[in-house]
């Protein structure tokens, strides 16, 4: 079983977001980068399944510039077997999906896994786009993932519930809430081994760019919080009704 796991390289979840160049570019100063949290959980679950069934290789792929390599090495340290970096600035979702579809075609994979969404671009679209480009079935927002007797056993989140899904390999799964709970932390041995694991760099293929970001904005600064005395909750009800007009 060959699995291709797509990982994004994103600002740590606690980052304070700032922009530069007249708010047209993200300010990378002092930003720590991490593996996208959804992909980190997906990797954890894939490793659990691999340990249970054996005979699985997990290749991580990232579309990014050289600066993403520490993030890729971290995935290798957690336990991925090898890695591919597509040399390009990942500006547009379709562009990223196209690169990953190309990597898939070169590698005879049985399964592609992506996170639910990136925490910087918040697209939640790359996984489905890959599936569409490769004419593969997809399972979106997968909330349970297992492989037993060579068959995929999945559940997916739907609006207002969940669904058990049967799907034949190969397919694309995007990981959702419940895929795994706690991310696996790399140990010393993993970190040592990661240095020697293969990380191939491949050139990007052409894809027309259809979307671009012109301008960023920060949310308006909120006014100070109005405090209401705990003994006077009627005052809160009054404010919500008369001032905020939400009751």
């Amino acid at each position, binding site marked *: 079983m060959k699995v291709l796991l797509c990982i994004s390289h994103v600002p740590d979840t606690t980052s304070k977001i700032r922009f530069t160049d007249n708010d047209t570019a993200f300010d990378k100063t002092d930003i720590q980068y991490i593996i996208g949290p959804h992909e980190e959980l997906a990797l954890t679950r894939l490793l659990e399944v691999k340990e249970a069934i054996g005979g699985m290789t997990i290749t991580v792929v990232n579309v990014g510039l050289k600066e993403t390599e520490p993030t890729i090495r971290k995935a290798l340290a957690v336990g991925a077997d090898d890695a591919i970096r597509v040399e390009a600035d990942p500006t547009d979702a*379709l562009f990223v999906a196209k690169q990953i579809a190309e990597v898939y075609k070169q590698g005879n994979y049985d399964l592609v896994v992506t996170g639910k969404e990136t925490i910087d671009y918040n697209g939640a*679209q790359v996984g489905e786009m890959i599936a569409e480009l490769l004419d593969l*079935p997809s399972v979106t927002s997968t909330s349970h993932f297992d492989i037993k007797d060579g068959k995929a056993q999945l559940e997916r989140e739907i609006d207002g519930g969940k669904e058990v*899904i049967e799907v034949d390999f190969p397919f694309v799964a995007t990981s959702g*809430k419940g895929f795994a709970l706690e991310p696996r932390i790399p140990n010393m041995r993993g970190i040592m081994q990661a240095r020697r694991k293969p990380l191939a760099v491949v050139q990007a293929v052409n894809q027309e760019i259809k*979307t671009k970001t012109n301008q960023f904005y920060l949310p308006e600064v909120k006014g100070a919080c109005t405090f209401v005395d705990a003994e006077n909750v009627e005052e809160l009800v009054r*404010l919500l009704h008369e001032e905020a007009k939400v*009751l």
Partner: protein
Amino acid sequence: MSVLTYTENWDGKFKKSTYELLSYANEIAKKAGTELIALTIGEVDNEELKSLGNYGASKVLVVKNEKLNDFIAKSYSSAISQVAQAQDAKFVIFANNVSGRALAARTSVKLDGGFVPGVMQLPSSIEPFVVRKKAYSGKAFADFELNSDIKVLSLNQNSFKIIEDAKEIAIEEASVEIKDTDLGAKPQSVEKASGKLLITEAETLVSAGRGLKGPENWGMVEEMAEILGGTTCCSRPVADLEWRPHEEHVGQTGKVVAPNLYIAIGISGAIQHLAGVNSSKVMVAINTDEEAPFFEAADYGIIGDAFKVVPKLNEALKKFKAG
């Protein structure tokens, strides 16, 4: 040329978000000087279909096909793309919910269009097409320019108001061809919390965190949601500890919500939690700790013990509602 919206139905019924979606698409159709067409898949009765005309749709196309009995992103997006092509749609607009997002992404690839997911307001310009969405998990916004002939959008829920624009609506059937290879991921069984208001649709959310100590204490939270006609949600540790169902988890790694009123009880206000809720119009925090970060984001706050404040607040709200 036309603007096509995919108006999902739930067992033959539309929701508030359907009408938000139509209202939004109708404004785009007006700006682009063209008609608004709705598309729905499966059995919906005529009365329900006619309701789409109240928000600007001049035609609704109903696709009935046995192969579309189960929701499968590949087959549904194939159906939608076929209709979009037949109607010469230049805009195809979806609700930004779990199914809408998946369909929009696939449809944009099929139609060779560009896709901006999770738009939150009308485009600031049509030529070039520029529209705003959230970025950095709600910590910022970005203006996206879309440079393709066919434009695919998904609209964030609760971000656009419903605007009535009554039209005489034509109801027609549309036929599509579904290949067996489009049916690869087969749903086997469904578990649905029937009748429960979805947290992404609710106008009022009462949310509670680890400050509530244990699942047995949620009665007063549910009571408040009921009084306010809203529903409940929670912070991530509460879902991880299985005090509450996972669907209720909001935040950066959970659901992103934008209600009119968000009441946070015993939630510290970590940046990852706020990322999922900071588009709420009004936020109230109730917390024992006056230093809790939630008070920096909240509009109104009560420093106090939830176990004392919430029951009193429920009584006051009940009195208010009783008039």
